[in-house]
């Protein structure tokens, strides 16, 4: 087991709390880094009436989050410190859709649905790595370089045994990441639904106008009833 897992957990949970605070309160980028460092220290302070630290309490319930989560948190953290442009909207949408689709399949198969157990293939992940390789090449071609970087970090983490798990799925997904992806996916779905409703409305209006015989004759739009 990796003896430096506490460093990884400190970074991940401090990043989560720091990003939530930055989202709620408007803090200048110079103070954000200082706040992140203070959070890292605070996570190791013992809780009242409990013989262990806040970080130990959190990781006891939630365990270590995946490398994919850590990579995405790192991208957002760099962006909040004005050190990076962050992830593009197209890249984020694609990532969320892939995570939602894959995690749905994974959780359903573990729960007894379907013939195979997808989680079991993560222990001997030759098939999974091949699939990730295909996704890597595809993302490289369409220039989603942050997803490519995440995949490389996941592979390095898996072969470097960063996490205590021997299953590649645990390096790819965790429940918090899936919840975040579901939230983003819901927003994307609502946006798509709104765009689709606008497009359908426009189409119906155009078709209604084009079906009007007066318009066909004159070639001018018919005045509205109010006019």
């Amino acid at each position, binding site marked *: 087991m990796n003896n430096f897992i506490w460093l990884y957990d400190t970074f991940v949970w401090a990043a989560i709390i720091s990003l939530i605070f930055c989202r709620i309160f408007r803090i200048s980028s110079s103070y954000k880094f200082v706040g992140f460092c203070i959070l890292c220290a605070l996570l190791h302070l013992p809780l009242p009436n409990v013989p262990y630290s806040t970080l130990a309490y959190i990781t006891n319930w939630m365990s270590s989050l995946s490398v994919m989560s850590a990579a995405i948190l790192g991208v957002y953290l760099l962006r909040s410190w004005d050190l990076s442009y962050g992830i593009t909207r197209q890249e984020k949408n694609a990532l969320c859709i892939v995570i939602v689709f894959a995690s749905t399949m994974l959780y359903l198969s573990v729960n007894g649905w379907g013939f195979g*157990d997808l989680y079991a293939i993560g222990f001997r992940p030759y098939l999974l790595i091949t699939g990730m390789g295909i996704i890597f090449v595809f993302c490289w071609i369409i220039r989603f370089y942050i997803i490519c970087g995440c995949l490389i970090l996941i592979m390095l983490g898996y072969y470097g045994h960063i996490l205590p798990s021997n299953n590649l799925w645990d390096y790819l997904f*965790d429940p918090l990441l899936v919840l975040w992806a579901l939230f983003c996916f819901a927003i994307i779905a609502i946006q798509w639904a709104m765009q689709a409703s606008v497009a359908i409305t426009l189409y119906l209006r155009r078709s209604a106008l084009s079906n009007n015989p007066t318009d066909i004759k004159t070639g001018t739009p018919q005045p509205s009833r109010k006019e």
Partner: protein
Amino acid sequence: MLLGAVAFWLAITAVPPTVSFQLALPNESALTTTTSQKKIIAINYLSDSPSLNIGAPALSVLPGGKIWAVWSADIPQPRYRAIYSDVWHADKVWGADHAILVQKSPRTGMPVDYLQAAAVVPLAHDARKHVVFYADTMRNYPQMSHLKMIVSTDGGTEWSLPHRIYSSPLAGMGLHVRHKPLFYADGSIGIPAIAHILGSTGLIVRFNSDYQVTGHNRIRTSVGSAPCLVPLNEKTIVSLQPRSNRSPQRFEFQRRVSTNSGQLWQSDFTDLRARTLSIVALPKNRELIAVLNNNTRRRARDSLALAISNDQGKHWRTIYHFEHPSAIQNQPQIAHKKNYMQEIERTLVRDQHMPDDHAQRAAWLAASQLCYDGICRTRYRDPWLLRDEHNNFHLIYVWNDVLVKHIQFNQAWLNAVR
């Protein structure tokens, strides 16, 4: 860079997996029968003093022929819970209880109770290295449980800190263990478990000899409890797992058979009805014997039956009731602890589990369903049956929620009662 990454992927996917799924069974020709008397050899209590909330106890055979028992219980200090260990020596005496893990349990003041170490599975690979698998469980919230293990490399004196086991996609949460492990020919171990994620699914979590999780096999959807696995030969395993919990006193069971050491399973029929059970296979004619809670009354745990199956678990026939009044008369008595219920009450009062006032004590006893109006309830649960290298059978179970009881019998007695 793209070409390098593709080459890296090709390199690591080119290695084929090499996994052996053959089971390792005990050498039956080496079994030595030491006693031929047709009787129950010994009855004892494992625990030195009564405890509350005893978790399901478990047994394992140590390399020297000793029997090693592990169970969990509350300790007198409030809000603490411990895993206890005890060893059955060759002189037919249990040693002193030894708490191998003590953990604080935030039981009071929390919206939900957090029960640590609800069930344990002990393993002893060699004379020095002992392992205990256990589940930290939150009562009423099985999804929040964690599977953990502690290791001792000095024969059970010093134990490591708990190490969490990851074998579920919900960050290792929702796993429970119970029942005897499987041993594979390559030295790996399969622990029967159940994963509570969106529903419940039986699993065999597989560990290598270094106790790292190397895989798991799913045994379809079930309810409630981990599968009870009985290896019949190097490739065939019978799984008995609760199927329906429509009647709370006993589950209907689902029988499944795997002919490839647990990778694929086929459903089959069984008439088994029980709440908790433990099964062993007899060496020669492959009969299965089970000790089970075959309760008939609602919410009762008053039946601890010995059942036998001649067709690999399809049909079961009850042949004996261990705690039936007529059976107890013919059993050897526990001489040194006759007034056990009074001792239990004294211990509970002393440890401030139970109020000292007589009226309050009666109310407490009624609420805890231990004794009421001088009538003590009979409640037996979580049996664990084990066959040792001398072909003797060891049964331990939770007796009235406050003690762990041990019964030893032999093949001759079994042949006489069947």
